[in-house]
């Protein structure tokens, strides 16, 4: 018998706004001017926030911090296609996602300062804390989407992982479930080129990560992840399909990690500055600014005003973060169970005893009040 082709995959790449700000009008999604300006404002503000966070870390005022610079479009735009009731699970490099969901960034700083009180997301949002062991959330997101399907109100779940994480078995199982149960899930692979020091080329041997979708009966597309309009169009269409019961989508956003892996890393050890320069010319903010300016939606005065407003906002957030009182050590015993078991009641008392041993009898009244639910 002659060999027959029984399946093939046709991987498309979506680009709408080129690196120099030229627009493919045929592909332009329906987006209001107000939304275009929101995209730019979010990307601008989170970049400035990122820069300040690095400065705080470098001056010993913050712990290890994962920068998002270069990935603003991939992070800030997809949340704009969602409702607060849709589930969102970013990665640890997800400051832009949380910001676009309305998170008060003083808490993001608090988290990266090693304070458990930093995982505070806006009330009413279905935002979940990212997972630090990468990819372990991906099957959970299949479950979140499954739950949305049970509710039957058109809700979806959207999540992210990196190009490195796409090598983990977690994505395989997540897409297997999402495809099999036709779940309203959107998986964004934020391909920023690097898993710490290991380049994208050393992950899957396949030419794209988007094509993984075909193995699971999931829709897949590759997108220029530095093109906010393309990211928006791809996400909006995936969300719309998912809401109507059309099943999951895998979106590979090709972007670039402009900074180190985190402030604890030194990318100059393993990558070429020329490659970074190439990507600097594909900057997501610059091309959006060119585009908005050409549409007469933006000018130097507006840019200056936004910069000023952003500086003030960041100052307020940093001040609020730094004025947060130190946590009471007893906090760690709160909220481990709905009702604390006896062992924890005993151990908390033991910690109180230790605190008195360290700081004298008055220490318990001098510490800030314990927070959280206990027992």
């Amino acid at each position: 018998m002659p060999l027959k082709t029984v399946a093939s995959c046709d991987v498309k790449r979506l680009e709408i706004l080129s690196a120099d700000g030229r627009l493919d009008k045929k592909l332009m999604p329906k987006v209001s001017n107000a939304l275009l300006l929101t995209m730019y404002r979010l990307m601008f503000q989170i970049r400035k926030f990122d820069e300040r966070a690095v400065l705080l870390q470098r001056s010993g005022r913050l712990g290890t911090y994962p920068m998002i610079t270069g990935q603003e479009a991939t992070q800030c735009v997809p949340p704009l296609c969602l409702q607060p009731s849709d589930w969102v699970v970013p990665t640890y490099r997800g400051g832009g996602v949380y910001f676009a969901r309305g998170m008060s960034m003083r808490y993001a700083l608090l988290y990266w300062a090693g304070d458990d009180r930093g995982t505070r997301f806006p009330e009413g949002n279905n935002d979940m804390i990212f997972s630090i062991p990468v990819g372990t959330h991906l099957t959970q997101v299949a479950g979140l989407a499954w739950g949305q399907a049970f509710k039957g109100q058109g809700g979806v779940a959207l999540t992210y992982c990196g190009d490195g994480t796409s090598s983990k078995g977690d994505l395989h199982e997540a897409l297997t479930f999402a495809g099999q149960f036709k779940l309203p899930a959107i998986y964004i692979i934020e391909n920023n080129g690097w898993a710490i020091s290991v380049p994208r080329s050393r992950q899957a041997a396949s030419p794209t990560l988007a094509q993984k979708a075909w193995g699971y009966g999931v829709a897949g597309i590759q997108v220029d992840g530095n093109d906010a309009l393309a990211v928006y169009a791809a996400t909006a269409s995936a969300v719309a399909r998912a809401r109507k019961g059309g099943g999951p989508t895998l979106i590979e956003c090709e972007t670039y990690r402009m900074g180190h892996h985190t402030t604890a890393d030194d990318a100059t050890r393993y990558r070429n500055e020329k490659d970074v320069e190439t990507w600097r010319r594909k900057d997501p903010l610059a091309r959006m600014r060119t585009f908005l300016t050409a549409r007469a939606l933006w000018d130097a005065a507006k840019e200056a005003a936004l910069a000023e407003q952003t500086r003030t906002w960041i100052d307020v957030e940093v001040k609020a973060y730094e004025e947060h009182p130190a946590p009471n050590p007893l906090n760690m015993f709160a909220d481990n169970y709905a009702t604390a078991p006896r062992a924890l009641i005993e151990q908390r008392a033991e910690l109180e005893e230790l605190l008195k041993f360290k700081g004298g009898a008055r220490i318990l009244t001098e510490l800030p009040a314990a927070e959280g639910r206990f027992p």
Partner: protein
Amino acid sequence: MTIASKPAATQVLNLVSAVNQALDQALAKDSRVMLLGEDVGRNGGVFRATEGLWAKYGERRVVDTPLAEIGIMGSAIGLAVSGMRPVAEIQFDGFLPSVFDQVVCHLGRIRSRSRGRLSVPLVLRAPHGGLIHAPEHHSESPEAYFCHTPGIKVVIPSTPYDAKGLLLAAIEDPDPVVFFEPKLLYRSAKGEVPTGYYTLEIGKARVVKEGRDLTLLTWGAMTVTCERAAERLEREDGASIEIIDLRTLTPLDIDAVLGSVEKTGRCVIAHEAPNTGSWAAELSALIGERALLKLLAPVARVGGWDIRMPLFRLEPYYIPDADRIVLAARKTLNF
């Protein structure tokens, strides 16, 4: 007649350099040895444990793998069964749980299931423990999960000398060895290390200091904390404290444990993991079973609380410090 021998050449190294030197010498000595893990190649490991080895031995033997812990663990098992001597690195202790399926269901069972025909001579290296202000899931102490698993050995040095000698022994060992490296000590622990190749026997504890009144039984970075606690107890309480650094958790040096506890009659076990179901719990049970009538006080355990490791602002209140060990030791001494 005495044979004149040149004193062995030594140099002062920190713990991570001792690990690096061991890996270097193992790669040089045995062509079956290879390293695999995330960022172990060009970047030299996130703690620089494999610094320089990729350039020296090439990317076929010092392998930057895709980001996939099960892939690292499972392929290391396959490589070992096929005759290689893989040294796999899992980048952080908190990323170890994903490899448990391979560890629990396969790593320690292949020798037995093949009735001795196959073996898995691999080393699984991972940084261990907290107190370096790291993000979440980067400060864990998962040794008990591994000690609970039959067929594997679990080693955790606390000095550069032990790190090098035990790592080389682990690489030579015919069975799988999980090798924990206390990350707090990577750069802070310094000591004389022979420059040449040497091995130390796996399964032997180290007497850090001798004493008469109480045994501090410990491992990993907590060894250093115990030394601080012992100084205070000797100065402030006039007690004579013995410290035993287990170095190997399984197979356990039970003779060293019982020998010390039977001498002092009092024992405090200090470690970083939550007490419930911990390796300290196993030690306490063994001491109770085998040395009950020599005990002058109940065996005390000082460990993490039975809650998850908090973010780093509160880690000094989670991981036992010298104060907690002193408190427990005083209660034991005054029982």
